[in-house]
């Protein structure tokens, strides 16, 4: 685990700097929060299509 997570190294601590705990943590977090809400949009649209289908 030592290699996967590393202590904060940048000059100024900040929210985003703290999330950058290794080569992927920050970017995976941002991708996730951007893409996840599409599930909700998907469910809404599926419900709408089913209603229209009836």
């Amino acid at each position, binding site marked *: 685990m030592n290699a996967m997570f590393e202590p904060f190294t940048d000059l*100024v601590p900040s929210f985003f700097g703290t999330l950058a705990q290794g080569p992927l943590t920050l970017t995976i977090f941002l991708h996730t929060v951007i893409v996840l809400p599409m599930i909700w949009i998907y469910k809404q*649209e599926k419900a709408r299509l089913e209603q229209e289908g009836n």
Partner: protein
Amino acid sequence: MAKKSVWSDNRFWQRSAAWITGFASVLLIWLTFDTSGQISMGNDSDLKNGVTKRVPGPTVINYKITYEMDKKRQHEVPVIGEKEKFFGRDDYSEEEAAKLLHLGKLGSQTKNCMNCHTLLGNGAYYAPDLTKAWLDPAWGPTGSMQAMTGKSTKEEAMAEFLQHPSQYPTHARMMPNLGITAEEAKGLVAFLKHMSSIDTNGFPRNFGKIQGAVNGK
């Protein structure tokens, strides 16, 4: 017949496009605020109190700057050391230094440096990168450029070159005369010295560390 898939539904993609564009923009704006706070220029008291800023204040021209490997960050960073004379003085006030930097930065734009050189790696590739030019050993006491201009300090050598570039060719490709005055040259050198003190996350790598024989030369 099977129901129409959500994946081929225009409205689903339209809403996804709106969400993703909007949210990515919000994140970018948030990041911009965070970064803006970190890249604002420092001031004289930061330098006096040893507060490290990514972009130090203009009075950084009163100090010696070196480029050293930082063990923790695993790349080189500019290190601001003891006082160092710049055109014979190491006591430029905040106003004086800011005025010089202002003149130099304006000059870097009006003389169109960026359409031959790169600054912080951005620009054209027809001439050397100027990000850490101030730290280039060629301009130092034993450097070829300082010797060529016949000056005894780095800043005077650079200023001399800037005013009469085509008198000091270093390659068949030469810098043209851009009508740079003595005062403008002084400003430009201050701008270069200031730029070399910016923390560029280790770019360029190994700057000025390798001298002499490579490739059996």
